[in-house]
């Protein structure tokens, strides 16, 4: 499978602390890569380093064989990255449509064109009927979908999902899992940080397990969940 995204030997340091140490990953189109690990393992830091929101100390990141290691986050977005944030902060005074419009304007120059694109994305995530409502009034599940819509509206090649399943009730969780599945069948490369194992096991083609900033295991969901080091990292030893 051709790689859309590659990250080689990524190390992130904050002061004297090494948050992520020499981790590599690669992702092809239509592939879903799950990133798991106990709290403080460096998942979000790695995720931020790859998307350009945390400084990379050493290592190399390529998107479609183009070196993007030194590019600021907004340029990575322009080249094909879409991402969600763990704490979704919609633009509350604007309508749902306008929130997505901000991202849609990246590829659509005219407002009418941007509105069309934004509406399409809202239909995709099932928020079209709420397009003209202020974003302030959305509940958690819908805020998540709005966050997803914003990430999709930049027309990404790779989408980074940061714990979008957290806190959802079972029906909403099922919907979200099904939705991420459709994204990958449409050819999008998906990198997700997730605590909900149900989603990881069901969706991931490949899983990377981090603990204390190091990659301790990788493989299919079945392989990593039966890996002793993984169980140890999660449950501890005595």
């Amino acid at each position: 499978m051709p790689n859309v995204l590659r990250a080689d030997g990524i190390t992130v340091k904050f002061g004297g602390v090494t948050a992520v140490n020499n981790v590599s990953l690669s992702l092809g189109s239509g592939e879903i890569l799950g990133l798991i690990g106990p709290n403080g393992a460096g998942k979000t830091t790695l995720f931020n380093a790859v998307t350009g929101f945390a400084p990379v100390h050493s290592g190399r990141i390529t998107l479609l064989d183009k070196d993007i290691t030194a590019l600021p986050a907004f340029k990575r977005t322009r080249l094909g990255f879409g991402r969600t944030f763990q704490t979704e902060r919609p633009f509350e005074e604007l309508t749902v449509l306008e929130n997505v419009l901000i991202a849609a304007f990246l590829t659509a120059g005219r407002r009418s064109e941007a509105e069309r694109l934004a509406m399409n994305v809202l239909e995709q995530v099932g928020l079209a009927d709420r397009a003209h409502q202020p974003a302030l009034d959305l509940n958690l599940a819908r805020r998540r979908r709005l966050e997803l819509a914003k990430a999709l509206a930049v027309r990404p090649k790779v989408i980074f999902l940061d714990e979008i399943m957290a806190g959802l009730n079972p029906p909403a969780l099922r919907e979200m899992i099904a939705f991420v599945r459709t994204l990958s069948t449409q050819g999008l490369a998906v990198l997700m940080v997730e605590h909900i194992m149900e989603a990881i096991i069901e969706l991931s083609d490949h899983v990377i397990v981090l603990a204390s900033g190091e990659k301790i295991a990788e493989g299919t969901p079945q392989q990593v969940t039966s890996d002793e080091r993984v169980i140890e990292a999660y449950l501890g030893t005595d």
Partner: protein
Amino acid sequence: MTKHFLGLGVLLAVGIVYPAIFPNYLTIAISVLLFAGWATSWDLLGGWNGQVSLGHASFVGLGAYFVAIGQSRFGLAPWWTMAMAAAFAAALGYFWGWLTFSLRGPYFSLSTIAVAEILRLVAINEEWLTGGATGVFIATLPEPFGIDLFSRVAQFYMALAFAAVVVATVIVISRARFGYQLRAVREDEDSAMAAGIDPTTTKLKAFMLSAALTSIGGGIYGIVLAFIEPHVIFALLLSVQIALTAIIGGRGTIWGPAVGALVLIGAGEMFRTTFAEANMLIYGILILVVVLFVPRGIVGELARRRIRRLYAKRAQG
């Protein structure tokens, strides 16, 4: 957008007949219009983009000095010098933004105070150009189409045109890509970057546009004053007044700064005549009341209530 342009059209029509109806209240109307234009320009950066400047007197002063020096020293007509002032103000905005936009939070605001202060010192010390502390005097002005630019009526119409152009600019921007970029950067720079927006470039553009528009109003102010002194025009008080006008009217709203100008200048004028020396005190109390009870500003609060009401109605039925 059509709604806003319609409103602007109605106000323009009122403005056009105003001098015929209230010929004795032109000076205060000019003040209101200039402040409306300045506060609306300020708001592009301070409200829509969230970068609070406390140095906009710099751009007012630049406009006034360009017009005055251009006319008195070089015989240049105000329209040329206003264009030059706008270009210079934009360049200054670019330079200042380039230096300071990496500072987040109040540091940018604090740094802007220094700009006007530096310009004031330059104006005082470079006597050969600016007339130093005594200032510059505009003795003659060209008469385009036989219009006497020293007449209050002509100055009123210039101020009206200035305010209208600035408000129209904001109406267009509020619906355009740039307007959404401004707001996205204000709300959250990380989310903005995730939408492919370059926060620094966006802020620089906003600063340049805001500075250029303000300086054009400054040029008109120069003509109105006819006599420009550095400590009056580059005053911190003026910078603060411009910012407060927008904040009290409603930051990041189309009409807020204009409403703020009407309320503050109107109230200021009333207090000055009624309470004389105590007027600054009352001005201060008014500001306190707004900050405490209407933190979004007058228009901002009204807009929020409207949205709430609409939504409540929908939720019920």
